[in-house]
């Protein structure tokens, strides 16, 4: 923990925005990811997850705002590129080349390259090294891409839906692998995923995007501790809104359920408070409309 807190954040953005012609993919995005975290990037489809990862990797340029990755702007510089690993969602690899060819190419293109680890990993997964990738299954290709990204020995690994193509067993193995790599030190991971169960298993940090905006960013424990679910008879919520932020309110004919944020005590004894789970929290934020101020309000663990 000391190591994490002392270090400069691996990722730090401020007011990041990305517009494509008419579409706004990302607005006013301010996040911070400390070193050594496995951060889950969560959000509904089209929330801007891929755009954020691509900006962090230096594949896309932000329209506005500042972005610092490993202490500098993402740039075309071999030393910077050597420290970043990125696997795109569609896992683009050369279909006419084999895994072995990709491993050899990586050795030519990277200063640090752990070819042995990829070979071992792929062999243990029964993925043929000599066969062209076009003949492998989507899941096998994903495994190859992820292994190649790890072989680079990056300091920051950005994974866009890395486990989407994997079967449950392979997914579990991969996540365990990833956790081991992070535990070995010097690696920070940001991975986008829809699978809350996976996130709960290995992630300790969370970035929640909805409607092109950051809704939440912080360590999962901290974020969960800041939220509570209130259940009570159906009534007006203006009183509670004075002291807390109501993230989501669900009303049935007789009962109201509120997801609230804020540390202060709830004065009204009619409400019954309970801790919130990660899935509830995620669904609560995905369901609400984006709020312009929330990016600033919800960024935690950051000394401004």
């Amino acid at each position, binding site marked *: 923990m000391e190591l994490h807190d002392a270090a400069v954040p691996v990722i730090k953005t401020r007011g990041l925005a990305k517009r494509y012609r008419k579409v706004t993919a990302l607005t006013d995005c301010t996040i911070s990811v400390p070193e050594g975290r496995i951060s889950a990037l969560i959000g509904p489809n089209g929330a801007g997850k891929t755009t954020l990862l691509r900006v962090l990797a230096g*594949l896309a340029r932000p329209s506005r705002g500042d972005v610092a990755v490993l202490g500098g702007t993402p740039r*075309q510089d*071999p030393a910077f*590129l050597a420290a970043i690993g990125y696997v795109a969602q569609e896992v*683009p690899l050369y279909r006419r*080349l084999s895994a072995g060819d990709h491993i050899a*190419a990586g050795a*030519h293109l990277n200063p640090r390259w752990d070819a042995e680890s990829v070979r071992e990993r792929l062999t243990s997964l029964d993925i043929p090294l000599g066969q062209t990738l076009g003949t492998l299954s989507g899941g096998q290709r994903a495994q190859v891409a992820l292994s190649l990204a790890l072989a680079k020995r990056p300091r920051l690994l950005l994974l866009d839906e890395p486990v989407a193509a994997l079967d449950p067993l392979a997914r579990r193995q991969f996540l365990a692998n990833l956790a081991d790599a992070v535990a070995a030190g010097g690696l920070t991971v940001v991975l986008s995923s829809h699978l809350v169960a996976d996130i709960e298993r290995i992630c300790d940090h969370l970035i929640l995007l909805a409607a092109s905006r950051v809704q939440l960013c912080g360590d999962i424990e901290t974020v969960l501790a800041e939220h509570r679910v209130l259940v009570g008879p159906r009534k007006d919520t203006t009183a509670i809104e004075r002291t807390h932020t109501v993230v989501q309110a669900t009303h049935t004919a007789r009962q109201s359920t509120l997801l609230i944020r804020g540390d202060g005590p709830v004065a009204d004894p009619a409400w019954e408070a309970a801790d919130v789970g990660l899935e509830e929290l995620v669904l609560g934020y995905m369901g609400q409309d984006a709020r312009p101020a929330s990016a600033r309000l919800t960024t935690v663990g950051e000394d401004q």
Partner: protein
Amino acid sequence: MTWLVWRQHRNQAYFAAAALAAFAVLLLITGRQLASQYQSARALCAAAHTCGNLANTLTLGSPAMSLVVTAAVVVVPCLLGVFWGGPLVARELETGTSQFAWMQSITRRRWLAVKVGWALLAAAAWAGAISALATWWSSPANALQQQNFQPSQFDIQGIVPVGYAVFAVALGITAGALLRRTLPALAITIGVFAFLRLVIGQDLRSHYLTAVTRTVSFGHLLALPKGSYWLVGQGLVGPGGKIPTTSSPGGGVSFNVSGVHINVANMPSACRVVFFQAPQKVFSCLTGRGYRGIFVSYQPASRYWAFQGIETGIFVALAAALIAVTAIVVLRRDA
């Protein structure tokens, strides 16, 4: 990066090498036949003192073979543009593999430089080899007919095929980088390449250097230039000594005055009538209307290599401009 370029394209390279080898064998065999046919014909005519007329009496090789060689050298640059240039960047953008390459510890600039560099070098070497073969193969015909400055021969010999190939590949690369799709890039490559080759070959080339003009008055003999000159204009010297800029005989009737073709359509209508009714009176009609004589405009044989150099330079310069555009597009645009 060179390793990856080679691994990606080695099958294409093997195929190209095999095609080149087949072409070389074909040309070496038929070329030797042509050379010996020409040598023996020279020996025969020298003995009979009839070599002055050899170009009219001797048919070298088969016209079909000439057509094959011409077609091959004309088409090869376009094929290189389509198969090497078009997919080079477009295929990577299309399939997303550029994202794999760009996330290795290598800058986009270097990635592009190595890929484009090898593609252009390979195209130049390949077209150079084809052109060298075709030039050697054509040498008996060049000696016999002295037509290697004519557009049909100029385009397939010397160094211009190298310029065409480099340009075609650069064009393919650029179209692919701009459109990010392989198939439309191929169509654009073929279209633009064919258009530019036609425009430059037909309209621009004859003006690289000011043509030399010879004129004589009616009734005198015009001494035609020697060697493999390129005739770019001929006809009537107009009133006031005016040399028409476009005077090559097009369609219609033309007649021959001391080796110079004069198109009847370029004469004043009154003299045209005279020509058809009483051809022997046409010169007095023309003189009466201020026409002075006949002329030929030509590019002398000694300018052949200057023209080869200028044309190659134009295509290489265009290729360089296209590559600059590609670099801007690839380096500035989001991946």
